[in-house]
């Protein structure tokens, strides 16, 4: 009889401990941030539709923020986090990369974040508002092409060679998001179907003619390569190809995209067919 009592007391004690512990560690929510489009653009449109569809099945832990500005984004994310008493688990910034600007960047609305602007406290004020909701266990994904590129672009016409400085952008992002882990790509970030199915949908070879120019050869050489900066240890890692899970979590595959034979063959074919003149250098003169 006494042993049963002891067992009951132990059970109750452990239950109270678990409850107290659960109350102390807030839930982790995942956010997908994408810019509100003013005109039709296939890539963000496809991404937003897919994210919204997946949100229907993961309403508790995943939120899709389609926003015109960082202020609006921060307001909405903070209100969700406050309401749910939660922290940011994963946050993915879906954006275009702009090759003609010759630097790694991502955009939220019309605001650009690159190594030039990431240290500007005024420009990043709205991102910094999210810092209290992040810690070293949070993951930040930069979903723009060449968002984490570290290579140097060769000189072209009157433009001198330039380093992309994606690593500086990643370090800056990690500092803003309270030493979170930041993922960004060295190469193209695709928007294939089933993007949030833990597949290789974020990696691939774009088909447009303008990409088949030797000017893009540093990018082609790094297809499916991602960089990871750990704010906790302050070190860079090169994980295998990054992917998105159904609930918006950022993860990575066991094998890299390029380790598959068919991808290697495809890449070799493209590399052979790179032809100077496919890229219109006029865009370099107005990198907007």
């Amino acid at each position: 009889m006494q042993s049963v009592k002891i067992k009951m007391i132990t059970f109750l004690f452990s239950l109270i401990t678990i409850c107290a512990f659960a109350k102390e560690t807030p839930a982790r929510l995942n956010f997908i941030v994408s810019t509100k489009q003013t005109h039709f653009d296939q890539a963000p449109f496809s991404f937003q539709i897919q994210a919204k569809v997946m949100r229907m099945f993961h309403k508790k832990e995943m939120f899709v923020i389609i926003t015109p500005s960082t202020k609006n984004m921060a307001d909405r994310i903070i209100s969700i986090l406050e309401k749910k008493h939660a922290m940011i688990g994963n946050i993915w910034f879906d954006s275009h990369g702009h090759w003609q600007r010759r630097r790694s960047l991502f955009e939220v609305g019309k605001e650009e974040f690159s190594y030039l602007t990431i240290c500007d406290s005024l420009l990043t004020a709205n991102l910094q508002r999210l810092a209290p909701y992040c810690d070293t266990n949070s993951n930040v994904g930069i979903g723009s092409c060449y968002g984490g590129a570290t290579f140097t672009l060769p000189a072209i016409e009157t433009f001198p060679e330039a380093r992309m400085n994606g690593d500086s952008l990643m370090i800056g992002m990690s500092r803003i998001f309270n030493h979170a882990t930041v993922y960004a790509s060295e190469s193209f970030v695709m928007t294939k179907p089933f993007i949030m199915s833990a597949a290789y949908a974020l990696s691939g070879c774009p088909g447009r003619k303008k990409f088949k120019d030797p000017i893009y050869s540093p990018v082609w050489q790094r297809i499916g390569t991602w960089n990871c900066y750990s704010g906790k240890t302050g070190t860079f890692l090169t994980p295998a190809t990054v992917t998105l899970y159904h609930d918006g979590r950022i993860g990575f595959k066991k094998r890299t995209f390029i380790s598959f034979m068919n991808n290697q063959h495809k890449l070799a074919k493209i590399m052979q067919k790179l032809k100077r003149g496919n890229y219109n250098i006029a865009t370099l003169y107005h990198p907007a």
Partner: protein
Amino acid sequence: MKFRALVMLWLIPFFSSAQYQAPSPRYSIHLTTMDGNTLKGLLMEVSDSSITIYPGKQKDWKSNLPPVHFSYAQIQQIKLKKKGGTVKGLLIGSLIGATPILLKPLIPVAIGGPKKSGFGSLAIFTGSVTVGTLWGGKAVWGANINGELSIFKTFKNRYDAKCKN
């Protein structure tokens, strides 16, 4: 007082002309540099030894992008295409194609006039429109400069002559 007001009214168009946007250039250009890079834009000006290009499309003309200058020594090849060539070709093609349809009622039956179905006319019309559009769209001229001043000058003379017309 009235005179002053009239003068002011007369001057309004002159002041407003300061905000007037120049019409977009007549030619779109496809320039290949000596390194083999391609630049597509609008040809703004051809001087004795260089050309000035607007690095955008017709729809970007209002954006007032800064123009780009290329010296003859940097240019390998130039291809020019007149603005609205495709539309012009389409119109000419459709006019030529429509001629037999329009004239058919006037042709007497004895010569083979309007008795049968219009499939032949439709085929001629479609063919003419297609050929006209393609011809208008492909109406490109230019020069292989290869960084040589003499060839560039020949190109400039030709361009000036075309602009006068």
